[in-house]
């Protein structure tokens, strides 16, 4: 082994040692997970943080209310309490696909001041998503929808910004004659 080779080797080893000595970029306790309820509307996957989900249930009937915006599907009775139910695709101005929709599940989301239901075809389950795996919303999403979306995961799961959906005034219906 020539001298230069030894030098090279030393240099490489040093570099390797340096890299190894570095703290890992993501430390275990630094990992942030978001628990979300994953659901499907019209063949698209959406997720909403469990913190905002009050309950999920199967509906038989939905009562239509005349004179409300299109995105309000109607109202449902949950053990004596009335909830309005909205269709997020309509609210986001996302055109409907050709798939067949059941739309027979309602996810009630709430915070201190607001409470309403979101309609879904089916519930895929609850899962944890690494928060830095949520990347920004693709530009193909309609402008109006992007405000209410936190981001998208690798497997095309759209994570909704529940906080904003609950605090945003534009979802509230308040109409005079």
């Amino acid at each position, binding site marked *: 082994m020539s001298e230069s080779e030894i030098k090279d080797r030393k240099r490489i080893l040093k570099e390797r040692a340096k890299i190894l000595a570095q703290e890992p970029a993501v430390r275990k306790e630094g990992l942030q997970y978001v628990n979300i309820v994953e659901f499907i509307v019209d063949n698209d996957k959406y997720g909403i943080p469990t913190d905002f989900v009050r309950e999920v249930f199967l509906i038989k*009937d939905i*009562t*239509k*209310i*005349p*004179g*409300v915006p299109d995105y*309000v599907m109607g*109202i*449902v*009775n949950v053990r*004596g*309490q*009335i*909830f*309005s139910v*909205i269709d997020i695709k309509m609210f986001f101005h996302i055109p409907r696909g050709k798939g067949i929709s059941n739309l027979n599940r309602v996810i009630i989301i709430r915070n201190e*001041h*607001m*409470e*309403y239901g979101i309609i879904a075809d089916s519930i895929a389950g609850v899962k944890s998503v690494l928060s830095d795996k949520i990347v920004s919303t693709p530009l193909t999403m309609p402008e109006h929808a992007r405000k209410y979306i936190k981001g998208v995961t690798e497997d095309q799961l759209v994570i909704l910004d529940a906080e904003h959906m609950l605090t945003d005034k534009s*979802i*509230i*219906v*308040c*109409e*005079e*004659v």
Partner: protein
Amino acid sequence: MNEREIEFQKRLLATFKIEAEEHIKEMSADLLKMEENPPHHEQIKIIEKIFREAHSLKGAARAVNLPGIEKICQSLETVFSSMKHEGRKLSVGKYDVLHNAVDCMSKILVSPEENREISELLQRIEGLISDDGSDTVRSEEYPQKYVDESMGTNAEKELPEERVADSMEEDDLIEKKREANAAGQKNDSVERETSHAKMLRVAAAKLDAIFFKVEEMLSLKQISLLRANELSRISNIMSDWDSKWSDVYSSARKTFLLQEKSETRKEGMERNPAYSDSLMEFLEWNHNRIKALEEGINGLAGNSKRDHRMIAGMVDELLEDVKKILMMPFSSVLEGFPKVVRDISRNQSKNVNLLIKGGEVEIDKRILEEIKDPLMHIVRNCIDHGIEKTEERLRRNKKPQGTISLSIHQTNSNQVEIRISDDGAGINIEKVKKSAIKSGFAKEDHINSMDDKEALSLVFQSDISTSPIVTDISGRGLGLAIVREKTEKLGGQAHVETKINVGTTFRIVLPLTLATFRGIIARVAGQKFAIPTISVEQAMRVNTNDIKQIEGKDTIFFDGNSVPLIKLQDVLRISNGKKHISGDRGNSEYLATLIINVSHKRIAFCVDEIVDEQEVLVKSLGKQLVRVRNIAGATILGSGEVVPVVNVYDLIQSAINISSSSVAKDIQQETSEKRRKTILIVEDSITSRMLLKNILESGGYTVKTAVDGIDGLSKLKTEEYDLVVSDVDMPRMNGFALTAKIRGDKKLSEIPVILVTSLGSREDRERGIDAGANAYIVKSSFDQSNLLETVKRFI
């Protein structure tokens, strides 16, 4: 401070607020009493009371660390103590300062975190009892006469005594105060102890929660009724079976017997008797089984009917009891009235005395909350329009002080009457009529033919006011309309009587408790809706032949009047597009119709079918639907079905809007059909061309296209167009050149030109405008509605 402590502080502050509000209310009321200058022994009592209130409030404020309130109370205490011990009297004008102080405390209470400058106020309060020359400084704030009174008489007289008091040893004074406080506290605790035994203080929110839960039990009642009805329906099926069975069974038996006989006779031997026997046996067994079932079901049906009666009785009783618990005396909302009357009348330099009688009468808390503002409005009206200015009153030989009396009394077990009368100028009926005619409420000859009583009730119509000027207090003609609407919503009535120069009396009759809401369940375009029974004058069937067309609108005659008839589904906008009701005869001869009468406006609404009439519990539509047009809420039927409850006030308004707009719409449609506007699109890109064409066609225009400027210009010269939409960047002739050509042509120069382009710079825009374009839309900011709006502006 850790979280728990903060939480504790929060709770403490909330409790303090409730307590402080009470003290402040009391103080304010007592101050008003003092101002009326009651006899001496009364005064002593009142001062003692205010003193105690101020003292307790001071202590409490210190506990929650609100130094502002604490300091104000301290100064007030000083004033009252001097009034108490030295017999000092305050002149009328000086009470303003005390009222200010009380107001200031309630302001601090509302937003304690806000920093307020109170030192000046404190100075003024303490200035009330200081008697050196500094009084003259304060005198600027009050009318001279008040100062004269106080300075001239009281202050001088009190002077020697004050000196004596000053010279007294301070310790002595403090001692005295302490005694007084102790006495006060003792009294307090005695009062509290005795009241503890009979009364319980419960937060209203807790009672409300109980009330809501009890109200929910109405659905239990509905469900039990539903079950009972289902069971009796099944038991009817069984008795049907019973009668059928006995017919068939007896004939079957006979057949068997005959068969047996004939068979034995013919053959002389038994042939398979076991078969028919076992069949008969089975039929017998089957009969007994079903009989047993029938008995069971009948028993169940009977029991469930009884259960329903029991549940209904218990729920109703419980609800009544809870409603009674939630009754509150009128005085709880009338407390603030004397102060408001005082303030307003001072403002208008009128002298008004408010007498309240019957404040102890109790009424449903919810009614009280709703009726407070209307009552206040009437009282304001009385001051503003009723009571004349002092000089005016003297000229008419009236007492200089006007009187408004508010009296409440219970007329029967579930009704209360509130009378608000003033001894003012009265309402000029001619003026009411004039205002009604001016506002176009009804035709002139109709109004002129009204008798006085009818005409007077016009004051409850909106837009009718006798006041020539609109003030911040009244005169817009809206207030009394709201008074009536609120009263009617609560199931009551409002009346008015007046006599020129003698006064006006408003009479409001209200139920003591809010009746459970009843609703008519009707089917509209296949969907069920609940309509409040109280607003429905009549539910009836209308023969389609009785529908007349008046000015193109469907009308029926009811109760001697013509009433507009409109489909409820049209008003709710769930229509299926048929215009006139009389147009779709054939389906049925009769139409189910509800005559709705709200605030003397009557409209007949026809529905598919009237299903039921029952108690309904109106619930909100959820937090996201704050207010929805025409819908007041929703109710849950016994079956679990959710049914929207109609808002009749909206409904009448919507019906009026629809019937007035429909004619206009028809005309509009006609003209647009006569000649659709034609637009020429000049655009070289095929995709852009198709896109623009689609958008404009969807907007209802006829669209022709050209591929470039030259093509466009030749088309413009051969055909007629109303507008040109052109791209800028095109081969052969660009948009600027085309625009310039159009403007240069005599025949075409008037045609509006809209340039649509990807060139977004200011220079380009200016160039476009220079060339004579009417509008310039940049493609990057382009959207459909934007284009259509721009087009609409020009044609």
